[in-house]
């Protein structure tokens, strides 16, 4: 049953103490009612109030924290579409490693580690698969060796293993090496072994991955695990077919968020490596589909740089807060090998403008210093209308970033859309020549190529 904010408010202390992080008890109650904040954030609720509210206010989808210090979490979503409200937890990427391919893959994995708009892009997890039938040592020894080699690389570990005794040994290695963070994911519970696997996961404080032959079996196993008191779960959508995996990811999320069916209120895991083995492009396609539609962990066979560039860019786009513009850091960005004698060009710090403009400026091949001033993350015209891009804001930027001592050239190109600012900027920046560049980024390639300064 969904509770209204007022029902919750009645049970709060009404002291407006702010200990929960909200300004007032009423504000807190409204957020809890929306599922945006957990009830436990208020330290002053009585036992009776908690009991009365507990189940009814629990968020529709569990949020599973893998690592609090490194800010890695799964799930906790409240909406199906990003235009309704912000998505909470971006999907994480895992790459499968094996005994024979470990060295080669870990080298490749570590190459992918870069910053995009302040977000670190890397492979967050390693997926280690145990197969009894391929186990040459027959007692899991080679698998444990693989676990030992994997734990030292600052990645969270997924143990894809349904054998409780091998899993125990593997979890012991993880616990010894990584402690409690990041949490290991033991992906191996099914209808037959869930009891033993759940005990193991609980003992080692690991997240338990659950799978089933189909959604019905998965649902029943999750129900059984919840009865055992384990709510630290990730649901594996399986690898029977692409169609089934997609149907699983969508139906699990939709059941939880639209139909308020809490049994499916857990993050999902999709192994696109298994769905399209040896097919890099298809894995990219599937990872993109599951980025939009409800994959929480996406397991790949590999993550090459050519795959990482679109996939991490797409993920960053989809998981941005629609109410918060994406911004780049204000500063001087030398392009095309620019030095202190190269011309200066300026635009705003709205990420989309920055990417489109730098792309075109780089295509022109002309060395130039791109000056990005703080324009509140707005586009050129919006920033201008809001007073965030003006002659004085530019003058302030040039002073604060000490541009005049860093760059000798005194020619500045301003966006064509704010040509109207030319006169004011000339007044605010004595000694500079101000030139109006084209209004559309795409026209700037030709403009700068043909430029004679």
């Amino acid at each position: 049953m969904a509770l209204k904010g007022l029902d919750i408010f009645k049970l709060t202390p009404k002291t407006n103490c702010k200990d929960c992080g909200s300004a007032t008890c009423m504000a807190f109650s409204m957020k809890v009612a929306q599922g945006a904040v957990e009830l436990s954030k208020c330290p002053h609720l009585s036992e009776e109030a908690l009991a009365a509210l507990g189940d009814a206010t629990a968020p529709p989808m569990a949020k599973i924290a893998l690592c609090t210090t490194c800010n890695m979490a799964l799930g906790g979503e409240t909406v199906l579409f990003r235009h309704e409200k912000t998505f909470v937890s971006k999907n994480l990427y895992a790459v499968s490693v094996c005994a024979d391919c470990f060295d080669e893959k870990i080298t490749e994995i570590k190459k992918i580690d870069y910053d995009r708009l302040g977000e670190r892009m890397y492979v967050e997890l390693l997926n280690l698969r145990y197969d009894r039938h391929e186990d040459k040592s027959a007692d899991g020894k080679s698998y444990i060796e693989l676990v030992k080699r994997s734990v030292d690389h600052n990645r969270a570990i997924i143990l894809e293993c349904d054998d409780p005794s091998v899993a125990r040994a593997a979890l012991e290695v993880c616990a010894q090496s990584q402690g409690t963070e990041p949490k290991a994911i033991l992906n191996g519970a099914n209808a037959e072994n869930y009891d033993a696997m759940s005990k193991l996961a609980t003992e080692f404080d690991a997240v338990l991955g659950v799978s089933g032959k189909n959604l019905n079996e998965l649902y029943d196993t999750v129900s059984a695990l919840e009865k055992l008191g384990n709510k630290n779960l990730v649901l594996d959508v399986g690898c029977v077919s692409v169609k089934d995996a997609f149907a699983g990811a969508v139906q699990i999320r939709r059941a939880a968020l639209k139909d308020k069916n809490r049994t499916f209120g857990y993050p999902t895991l999709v192994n696109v490596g298994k769905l399209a083995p040896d097919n890099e492009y298809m894995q990219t396609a599937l990872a993109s589909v599951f980025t939009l539609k409800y994959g929480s962990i996406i397991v790949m066979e590999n993550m090459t740089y050519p795959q990482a560039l679109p996939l991490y860019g797409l993920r960053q786009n989809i998981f941005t807060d629609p109410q918060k513009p994406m911004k780049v850091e204000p500063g001087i960005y030398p392009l095309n090998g620019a030095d202190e004698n190269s011309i200066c060009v300026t635009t705003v710090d709205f990420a989309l403008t920055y990417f489109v403009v730098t792309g075109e400026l780089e295509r022109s091949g002309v060395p130039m210093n791109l000056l990005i001033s703080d324009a509140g993350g707005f586009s050129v015209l919006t920033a201008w209308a809001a007073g965030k891009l003006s002659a004085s804001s530019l003058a302030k930027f040039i002073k604060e970033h000490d541009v005049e001592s860093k760059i000798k050239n005194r020619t500045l190109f301003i966006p064509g859309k704010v040509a109207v600012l030319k006169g004011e900027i000339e007044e605010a920046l004595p000694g500079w020549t101000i030139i109006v560049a084209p209004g559309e980024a795409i026209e700037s390639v030709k403009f700068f190529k043909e430029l004679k300064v």
Partner: protein
Amino acid sequence: MAYKNEAQVFPSSINTLTIGIGDKAIAFGGENVLPLYTFDAPIEHRPKIGVAISDMGYIKGVPGIEKFYAGAENVIEMAKLAANMPGADFLVLCLDSANPNNGDKSIEECVDLVKKVLEAVDIPVAVEGCKNIEKDSRLLEKVAEAAQEGSDKNILILSAHEENYKAVATAAALAYGQNVTAESAVDINLAKQLNVLINVLGISPEKMMMNLGSAAAGYGFEYIASTIERVKMAALAQDDAMLKMPIITPVSSETWAVKESLASQEDYPEWGSAEARGVNMEVSTAAACLAAGSNAVILAHPDSVKTISELIDNLM
């Protein structure tokens, strides 16, 4: 309590639009479920793939594309090859050279090429203008006329904009009976407004597609995804007749123009093969468009066409 899928089948459905003729004709749209949700109800017309070729030639410097078109000496031969690309559902001929800043080829020359291409290929064809508003309004009228002449080819015209919809849409759909795409800039209200304006001219929504804008993955794609998702929701859940047209999204024109695809391996050695970057960018963006709700995507590289075609096979 056992799990049961609460299927979301909507009482209204996306319009169905057919282009091409005879047994080679293809249909877009028609679904009454969210994109690719075949587990809720069958989707009769799977999403389609258009292969783009420009009258200025194919994308240069990409080995897979150059190899595919090797030996083709003119646009007509290229068109024939593109029409037979595995996974291609329709051909998209872009008349880039008509642009006043890009060759300014005469309308007569362009129309002559369109006629030859229409004769040369038997799969359905979409013809895109040169993206110059003024030139396109004259050019696309003549293209539509040429498509109707003789045996009507029932083509798709790209695109009618806010600034030239009267000329383009009237000529394409009313005067010469072809189909028209309404193109707007990543905003559900702008899209609806343009559709209403075109509808007021007397053009049936059944003759229209929508291009809601396009972007490469990482380049503000969230705006594209959310606009497409909102439009689909309005069409299905609110039965908004002015937003029920099938959606077509050009992908290759965006993805092959970003740094990730263009930068040479010499400049960015750690990034790996430029071609692999370009294809991954194209594939990722196209797959995301389909997941958001595009009924058709426009691609260029044979590997991308193959991959996305197989993806659709797997999901249907």
